[in-house]
């Protein structure tokens, strides 16, 4: 499930680290001195040990030897303090850089066109992101892998420098041939390893490749989420567990086959790398020991050079495997990067929305058609509607008749596929997006009260004004409830964010209305606000809303409801059917057309209340 145009490999890795660098420079820069010092230390220790051993053999004085040993111990202490200091700074920056990346990713959700947000294209990326994250910890691992790679590289290079004396003392020819031979082996082994095991492993881990399309992650759906609350009642009453268990267990053979392959590749890779390091170990010691026996190098240098060769070999593999892992890890975050780089396509103009010259707003849908991307059917088709400021419009219709879609188009969450929507005669696309959004106070059916403070829930980021807030809360009948809260406007709602108070569904609904009132935009839109309420709370909301929109004559109001009774106070009712406006007028007018849809809808509900 990887798209071919995704940037991969080294270029992809560079892109990832560039982005991390942009977000937090120190998290990257400090990696270099840290890797250098950390990998210098083992060589220093080897060098000093070798030096002292040679001193023993040549009969160096106790004083001189002690001197060297103590200087070394002191230097090591100093380097260690420096290293730890840089490490702690790096770690703090590392931690924050990763947090910032994920927050930036989340922020992207707020910035993309809404149309994109809910589109198959984004769902596809989201799917890839979640699959990519299944094996590997996403961005969290990118920095440690960089460090791993850098460590190996520095360790290898420093070792190379340390070998220079051996070249000088025992002749460039012999040593060169030996070293060339050794690293040729390492190179071949690396190649074989990657060709036969590494590539296989990568392919195996590539999400979606080893599994079928349908029911791929059937068990994951159930196993990986802690909370399937709606399932628990159904599971018991409908005895779902035998079938669900059977389905989950039926995935076992596939999993075992996968694990077997994985074990083969991993084990093979481990075998080859340790075989090569083993060869290095044997080769290095035998070579150096032979040199020492021949008297070319002093005995202490056995420890130094054999240790150095061994260290170089270890680091060679750290470097190569670190590189592979690093690039692979970066591959796995490319889907996330792609998401973060999504470009908005919606046209956003710059015209300012005229400030309220009362009575001058006029909205018109001109022959608008719309279908959701990926859908074959039009949600709205050749749709025409005119609306003046101060008008109260009720929209009724069956599920799927296009009511909510019309609101989404009006509020520029989507743009029409055909036709145009105008505000005072100008296409709404040409207005400044934020200003245009500013003229609506909308309460959607699936509104959400955040677990933030009451003031944040009302103002939602705008400056908080206590009087406006009190007015709004009084209007919706929450004034008393709020007055009783000990922390007033600083009270948190629910317990998801901070310790707060529980509010009922009805209160939440009222709060959502209050925040629409707080925004106090010229056009109010209510989309089915009472589905979850009991009759008394429902009636309260209707009456309250009625009051609010009657109070300000210049306010426009659009109201969608399945409860037709609630539309009766609107002077203007629009009946939607299959994406078109089929009837419009006041209640009595519409009801008098006994063949009309409105009559049918009304009677479906009212019959039960009118028969005596």
């Amino acid at each position: 499930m990887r798209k071919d145009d995704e940037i991969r490999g080294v270029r992809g890795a560079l892109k990832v680290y560039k982005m991390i660098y942009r977000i937090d420079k120190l998290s990257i820069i400090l990696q270099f001195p840290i890797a250098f010092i950390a990998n210098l230390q083992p060589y220093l220790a080897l060098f000093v040990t070798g030096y002292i051993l040679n001193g023993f053999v040549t009969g160096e004085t106790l004083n001189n030897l002690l001197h060297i040993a103590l200087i070394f111990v002191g230097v090591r202490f100093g380097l260690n303090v420096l290293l730890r200091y840089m490490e702690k700074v790096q770690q703090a920056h590392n931690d924050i850089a990763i947090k910032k990346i994920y927050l930036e990713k989340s922020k992207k959700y707020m910035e993309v066109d809404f149309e994109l947000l809910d589109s198959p294209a984004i769902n596809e990326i989201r799917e890839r992101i979640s699959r990519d994250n299944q094996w590997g910890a996403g961005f969290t691992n990118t920095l440690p892998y960089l460090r791993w790679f850098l460590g190996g590289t520095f360790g290898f290079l420093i070792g190379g420098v340390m070998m220079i004396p051996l070249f000088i003392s025992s002749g460039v020819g012999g040593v060169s041939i030996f070293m060339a031979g050794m690293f040729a082996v390492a190179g071949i082994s690396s190649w074989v390893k990657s060709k036969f095991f590494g590539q296989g492993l990568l392919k195996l881990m590539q999400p979606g490749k080893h599994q079928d399309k349908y029911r791929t992650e059937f068990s994951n759906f159930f196993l990986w989420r802690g909370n399937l609350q709606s399932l628990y009642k159904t599971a018991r009453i409908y005895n779902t567990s035998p079938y669900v268990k059977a389905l989950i267990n039926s995935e076992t053979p596939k999993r075992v086959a996968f694990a077997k392959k994985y074990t083969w590749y991993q084990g093979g890779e481990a075998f080859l790398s340790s075989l090569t390091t083993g060869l290095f170990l044997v080769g290095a010691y035998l070579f150096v020991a032979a040199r020492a026996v021949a008297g070319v190098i002093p005995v202490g240098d056995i420890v130094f050079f054999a240790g150095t060769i061994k260290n170089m070999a270890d680091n060679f593999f750290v470097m190569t495997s670190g590189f592979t892992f690093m690039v692979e890890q970066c591959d796995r975050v490319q889907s996330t990067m792609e998401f973060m780089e999504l470009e908005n396509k919606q046209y956003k103009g710059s015209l300012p929305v005229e400030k309220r010259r009362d009575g001058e707003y006029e909205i018109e849908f001109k022959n608008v058609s719309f279908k959701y991307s990926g859908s074959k059917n039009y949600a709205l088709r050749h749709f025409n509607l005119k609306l003046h400021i101060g008008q109260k419009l009720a929209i009724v219709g069956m599920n799927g008749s296009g009511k909510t879609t019309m609101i989404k188009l009006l509020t520029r969450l989507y743009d029409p596929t055909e036709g145009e929507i105008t505000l005072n005669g100008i296409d709404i696309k040409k207005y400044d997006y934020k200003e245009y959004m500013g003229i609506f106070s909308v309460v959607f059916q699936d509104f959400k009260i955040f677990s933030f403070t009451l003031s944040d829930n009302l103002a939602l980021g705008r400056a908080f004004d206590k009087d406006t807030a009190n007015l709004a809360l009084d209007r919706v009948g929450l004034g008393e409830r709020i007055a009783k809260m000990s922390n007033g406007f600083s009270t948190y709602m629910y317990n998801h964010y901070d310790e707060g108070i529980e509010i009922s569904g009805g209160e939440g609904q009222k709060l959502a209305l209050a925040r629409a009132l707080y925004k106090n935009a010229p056009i109010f839109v209510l989309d089915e606000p009472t589905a979850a309420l009991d009759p008394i709370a429902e009636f309260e909301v209707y009456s309250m809303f009625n009051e609010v929109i009657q109070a300000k004559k210049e306010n426009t109001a659009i109201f969608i409801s399945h409860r037709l009774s609630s539309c009766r106070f609107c002077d203007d009712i629009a009946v939607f059917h299959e994406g078109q406006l089929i009837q419009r007028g006041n209640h009595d007018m519409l009801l008098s057309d006994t063949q009309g849809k409105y009559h049918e809808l009304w009677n479906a509900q009212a019959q039960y209340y009118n028969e005596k």
Partner: protein
Amino acid sequence: MNKNTANHSVPANMVHLMGMAWKHYKIVFILILLQMITGGLLPLMGLYLPVVAVDLVLAERELNQVLLLLGSFVGVMAVLQIANNVAQRGKYAFQNSIRNIYMRLAFFKSMDCDFQLIETSKGQNWYEKVVDNLSSGDWSATSRMFNAMAAIISSGISFIFLISILAVLNPVVLIALTGLSILGYIIDRFPLNFENSQRDYEADLNKKKSYLERSMGDIAVGKDMRLYNMPPLFARLTDEILAKSFAIRTKILNSYFAANTLQGMLSLVRDGLAYAYCIWQVVQGNITIPEFILFMGAISSFSGWLGGIVENLLMLKRENVIFNDLRGFLEATNTMNPANPLDISEIKHPVDIEFKNVSFRYSPDTPPILDGLSFRIKANEKVALVGVNGAGKTTLVKLLCGFYKADSGEILLSGINIDRFRRDDLYTMFAAVFQDICILPLTAGENISFNSTQKSDKGRLVDVLKTAGVYEDLMKYDSGIDTPMTKEISENGVVLSGGQQQKLTLARALYKNAPVIILDEPTAALDPIAESEIYEKFHQVTGETTALYISHRLASTRFCNRILLMKDGKIIESGTHDALMQASGVYANMYEIQSHYYKDEVNVNA
């Protein structure tokens, strides 16, 4: 109620884990043993390698001999290294398969355990904690315990040898090193304790960060996000959290840095003394050059190896607590089943239902939800249950289904107390449509029968889908009733509208054909015409069953034989619609309010 953990010791859990490995994937068991043994020998050989090499050269042996002896030594080492590496990395996949088995067991348990274990917030947190840990891969308790266990045994083996080497050198050195290590351990405790003391604070910050991330990424919030221009609010809150996280992390890292510097000073003293002592011993001729290498190696390895053992022991101890959460969850006993259950066939059909003075509260410190509730539903009677939000209707259903036990009073089915049956048997008595709709990522048909299409009664499936009014909708898709539901796992999956989902769950209840049918607000998401269709089919839908119907749409109650009005955990009115209207009580008032605007004559400004 179960306590939220088990009490197994570290060794007991280690045996349990190895038992799981032996039972399911022996390869893991074998590879771990291999890893332990080779891992124990390798560091020792590493310590001796330079000793052997220098010794051989200093002994002035023939080149052939040197190469042979040294070659065999290094060769053995290389082989051990290969075995160790292969074992360590080879076990990875199957070790994770064992983790997956635990995940399955935990999920299966969530479906089979007492309902209250999984539904209370305490139980949910417990299960969530277990799943969170199990799903965190290499950081999960199972993986960590496997690894720590292997590490401890290996380092234990090598450490015992190390001690004997040092004891030969000088017992005083051994004691001094032990002392220094203890001091070092104490120093390390300070930053650790500090970090632990800040754990709740950091967890709280993380919780807030996740909440912000979730909210920002919530597509349902997307509309309000744009219309209310919320990004500045979220920017402010995230900046707050990030600043706090950075500040506390820096503080914690500073405390580690301070401790590390102190540790460094200890090493400075230790290494200084060690070099001085050993060099002096060599110069004095008390020890040989190879011995010098050995002792220096042993001394500098000592605290690191010991520290490793201690770290892994602490890790085992820590992970054991988490592992016990898991085992406790898996081992939680179902307390709802009676010791001597009656056979469910003892219940006479059609079923009548009686609540006798039932009281219930969710926890001792909350007010009662049901308060001396009594009522009776006769066999085959259709009863509507109405009341304001929070009156206790949904709780009543939960008690009736046997999800919770009443604190006092009795619930009878055809005269027999429901507590006398096994829960699984009791559940067969009910077909219920719950408010929170559950559509699983199976096909539409499987979502109704919870069986494969081949094993389902296809004719019945079609019938119930037609009755519920969703058959036509499904037929619009190529696969018909085999259309996969939800996009969770299938790209071709279909997300039904709220109304269609409600109809699908209704079909599920009809398919089950149980003696009691419970409908909890089955029409909330339906448009007037679909709602009206459901009402009209109500009798057909409920047929020869006892039915309980909960709704806010009072019109629906007209189809029931009787209406029960619930308030504050009691039934306060009971009777037919007409009788209750005449009584002019709470029901009549509610009905008046709801029908207000539906009346033919109405004062719009009322």
